[in-house]
């Protein structure tokens, strides 16, 4: 594994067996997480982004999850090959996760302080006294006022934004190397979201955690991420630094996304260009490029084979047949790319 990387995902394939058939949620996903960076994985419903995140933590429901292939390299190990007990030693102290809904992420019957100290005692072997002190520190760190009193309160006594801070405190308690945040601010108001995103940025700098941020909100990505991976129907279709991907996107799906979002900074004459149709059914994913059915530039080859990745720079790759030398030259829509 490359020294710059703290996590390497190679050719991950995950499916679910349901009564409706097998749903291929993740169909060969490959990406790296560099030390200290924030990587955003962006996609819409059915893109497989959440499943990818949960697969790293091995939190997918055991009963019907089938890992059809791939490796997740962390340090010397392949996380997919570890036993449950070994995963438990990783979850928390090495890799932590923050979920979308703060209401259900916390145990309503346990005081907030205890939910933090549990982790500290188990993974770091702290004594009760040390752990309690650290819990108060952590609450302060995540910006909860009156930490000494609040550490003894129950989750229902906190507002949504505060609860999410608590969840972050628990996640960062053991100073994990990787933090996976799955839509951490989607359920929150926009002003609270701003607070939480600032917090995440601050904490990342302080603790040096590498962050994988799962989201569908491109604004959030522009605000906090260093690099971005765009997923569609179980595959990554474009990756690059945030600037490269926003200002020089190379894949029609990315163009489509950027062109269909209203910008608060633009004037109202800028048309919204929607992407027609809907994402494909993952129990029967199409051959070739999954975006073909909705792509305005589709060619015959697009529905036969998934395109090879074209490299544009050290970080910037995209998978699209338009980059093949035999493909016609195409300009992205006016709404997209270019300096602001």
């Amino acid at each position: 594994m490359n020294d710059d990387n703290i996590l390497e995902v190679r050719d991950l394939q995950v499916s679910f067996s349901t009564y409706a058939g097998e749903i291929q949620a993740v169909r060969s996903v490959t990406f790296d997480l560099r030390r200290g960076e924030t990587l955003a994985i962006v996609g819409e419903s059915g893109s497989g982004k959440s499943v990818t995140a949960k697969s790293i933590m091995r939190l997918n429901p055991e009963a019907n999850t089938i890992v059809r292939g791939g490796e997740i390299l962390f340090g010397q190990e392949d996380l997919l090959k570890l036993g449950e007990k070994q995963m438990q030693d990783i979850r928390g102290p090495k890799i932590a996760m923050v979920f979308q809904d703060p209401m259900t992420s916390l145990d309503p019957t346990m005081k907030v302080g205890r939910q933090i100290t549990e982790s500290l005692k188990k993974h770091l072997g702290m004594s009760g006294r040390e752990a309690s002190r650290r819990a108060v520190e952590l609450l302060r760190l995540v910006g909860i006022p009156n930490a000494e009193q609040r550490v003894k309160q129950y989750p229902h006594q906190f507002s949504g934004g505060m609860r999410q801070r608590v969840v972050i405190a628990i996640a960062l308690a053991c100073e994990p190397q990787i933090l996976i945040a799955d839509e951490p601010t989607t359920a929150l108001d926009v002003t609270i979201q701003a607070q939480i995103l600032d917090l995440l940025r601050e904490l990342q700098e302080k603790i040096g955690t590498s962050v994988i941020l799962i989201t569908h909100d491109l604004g959030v990505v522009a605000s906090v991420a260093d690099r971005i991976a765009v997923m569609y129907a179980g595959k990554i279709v474009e990756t690059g630094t945030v600037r490269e991907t926003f200002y020089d996107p190379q894949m029609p799906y990315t163009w489509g996304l950027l062109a269909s979002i209203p910008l608060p900074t633009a004037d109202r004459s800028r048309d919204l260009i929607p992407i027609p149709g809907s994402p494909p059914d993952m129990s029967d994913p199409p051959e070739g490029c999954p975006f073909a059915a909705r792509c305005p530039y589709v060619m015959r080859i697009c529905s036969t084979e998934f395109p090879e990745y074209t490299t544009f720079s050290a970080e910037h790759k995209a998978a699209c047949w338009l980059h093949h030398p035999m493909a016609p030259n195409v300009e992205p829509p006016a709404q997209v790319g270019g300096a602001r």
Partner: protein
Amino acid sequence: MTEQSSNGNGAILEVKDLKKHFKVGRAYLKAVDGISLSIKKGETLGLVGESGCGKTTVGRVLVRLYQPSGGEVLFAGEDVHRTEGEEAKLLNRKMQMIFQDPQASLNPRMVVSDIVAEGIDIHGLAGSREERLDRVHELLETVGLSKEHANRFPHEFSGGQRQRIGVARALAVEPEFIVADEPVSALDVSIQAQVINLMTQLQKDRDLTYLFISHDLSVVKYISDRVGVMYLGQLVELADSDELYANPLHPYTRALLSAVPVPDPDYESERERIVITGDLPSPINPPSGCRFRTRCPQAVEEAAHVDPPWREVEPGHWVEACPCFT
């Protein structure tokens, strides 16, 4: 708090000091606590705010799902909550609503044609079965679906398609005014644009008037002519769309606008964010005077004692004139 409104300039809807309080145990939850605005025919008024601000309640009071606790709502000069019988029924046709949740807004046990034709059935707008079916097909095509979809069940459709069915249902009774309550919030980003474009097209074709309720400031700015910002049951600012975003006056509006992340990395790395601290106060016991003062970055002592007046500080630009910035 009254906005200068007159029927003369084509206001189809007028809201005067509207209040809606819900009884919670012994106390009252003041979901809406004195809102005044007017909407011109053919206009889209956006209503933004975060959770607990009361915007959804406003929408529901307007279409008469709730009775107001105070104030009045006038549609074409008529008090909508005082009408009865035939007139009330007519209002059901003129004022319609589009709902937020594509899962819950369609009866899972009914086929699409029955869902869409419900208004037609209730108001007897079709003379025969064929006519009813024809109208359903027409409506489905108007919203970008097809005839084949008519005898299917809601669960067979995607979120975006379900929202279209909801739009078709509202259109079936030929409304003049539509309250759209977070119509695209539950949809994927690339699908949102489909529904937004549909709504804009329909507005042009049918001269509809919209009240567009949303927490998403970018969407609201795009689709609305004017925008009102709500906080804790009251309007804090109301202005033309472009004006509001270019020149926000109220500290809450400014904080709200600065909190919205923009998909433009350079812009984001350079911008100054106005951070508001603290939690939303309870609507059962809102702060005295200016309600935003407990979280306002520029709060002044006076704000607690004075009910800030609702003033038109520039033509068309209304603001709750809190002492902290006036």
